[in-house]
């Protein structure tokens, strides 16, 4: 059966000499892996359309339950080449590609995640030096798949709290905290920043200008939370801090 959809390339893996296994996030089928014949050959008809980030119209062929259908066509809608043109931009984005590929199950459509990734890539391409889009993506992505940390109230009683417990994925208030071991302390400002990044319209995000420290506080908490949920750190995370 031939299926058509739109997809964004999250990653590719070499397969044999000139073939690739391509992981797309698609609008209709969620995360899918397909086999692409010879894209690495210079005269391949796939051209540059299988480079990471490329948003294209794709067709693939295979039985409904085939675990590796064959990619037959890929026509670029948006290349996001401007992000790939700059090392520091691509490194930042690598983290959200890995996050997406690591958490999502295959063959489960999630149109909201697809639109979120597309929107964030569009914003990032306009100006990748803005630090907020990556954190914003992490927060909203986790929210859409039901893994978001809860910062708006204590996991026990709902009251305001500033002690975040990774094992609970939530803040816990002063009263319920007794007898528990060391939490991540959050400032009221970082909880507010978290709320804004969860809800504000994407086009307004650049009006938020948090301090470096505040950003680091929220970012570290999110990364710890992700590491706990994933039972390993993101490979792309450690390195891009250097930049």
């Amino acid at each position, binding site marked *: 059966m031939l299926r058509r959809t739109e997809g964004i390339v*999250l*990653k590719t*893996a070499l397969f*044999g*000499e000139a073939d690739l296994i391509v992981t797309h996030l698609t609008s209709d089928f969620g995360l899918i892996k397909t086999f692409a014949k010879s894209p690495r050959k*210079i*005269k391949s*008809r796939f*051209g*540059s*359309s299988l*480079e*990471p*980030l490329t948003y294209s119209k794709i067709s693939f062929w295979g039985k409904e339950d085939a675990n590796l259908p064959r990619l037959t066509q890929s026509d*670029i809608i948006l*290349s996001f*080449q401007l992000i*790939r*043109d*700059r*090392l520091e931009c*691509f*490194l930042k984005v*690598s*983290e959200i*590609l*890995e996050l997406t*590929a690591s958490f999502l199950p295959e063959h489960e459509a999630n149109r909201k995640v697809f639109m979120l990734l597309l929107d964030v890539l569009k914003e990032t391409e306009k100006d990748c030096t803005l630090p907020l889009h990556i954190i914003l993506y992490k927060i909203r992505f986790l929210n859409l798949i039901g893994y978001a940390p809860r910062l708006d109230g204590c996991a026990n009683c709902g009251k305001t709290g500033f002690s975040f417990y990774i094992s609970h994925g939530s803040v816990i208030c002063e009263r319920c905290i007794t007898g528990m071991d060391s939490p991540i302390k959050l400032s009221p400002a970082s909880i507010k920043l978290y709320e804004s990044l969860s809800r504000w319209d994407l086009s307004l995000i650049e009006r938020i200008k948090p301090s470096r420290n505040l950003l680091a506080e929220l970012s570290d908490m999110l990364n710890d939370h992700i590491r706990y949920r994933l039972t390993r750190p993101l*490979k*792309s995370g*450690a*390195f*891009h801090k250097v930049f």
Partner: protein
Amino acid sequence: MAQGIIENLITELTKLPGIGRKTAQRLAFFMLTMSEDSAKAIAKAITDVKEKARFCSRCFNITDSELCEICRDESRDKANICVVEEPSNILVVERAKAFNGLYHVLLGSISLIDGITPDKLRISELVERVRGDSVSEVILATNPNTKGEMTAQYIKDALKSLNVRVTRIAYGLPIGSDIEFADEVTLSKALEGRREI
């Protein structure tokens, strides 16, 4: 018994890239008909490669001695280094007969999502080479894809403080192709890299 050993050979051969069950069968039965000497020569060539092949201590090309053939060749221009991802890339550049300098093999390309960070490649060794030897130009011939491009940019930054010219091989349309069929990224890169004629 005979069935077992021939089956074993077929299974081993199918581990090679591009060799399916059918080809493996054909090769296995051909080997049966070969003279013992020629068959042993193949086996020896394979074990030799595994036992003696190692990386050149200067450029990380494959060699059987301390320095590879290219690094030992006095007629090569030591002021130019061509940086490639894999040892097999050297053969391809050599075949083009357009370069007479030395090489540096990175043994991979940067891909954070796969956990391949710059420290896993032979980049610091390259920087040391450029710092130590009198190198005037480093040509980055990593693959024209995202991983290769990221690697090239990273190396450019790593060499910034050293007094060396760093160039990147041109992006262009494949010779013999038709402009009709080029995708937008390839074409825009080819336009960017245009030159006066």
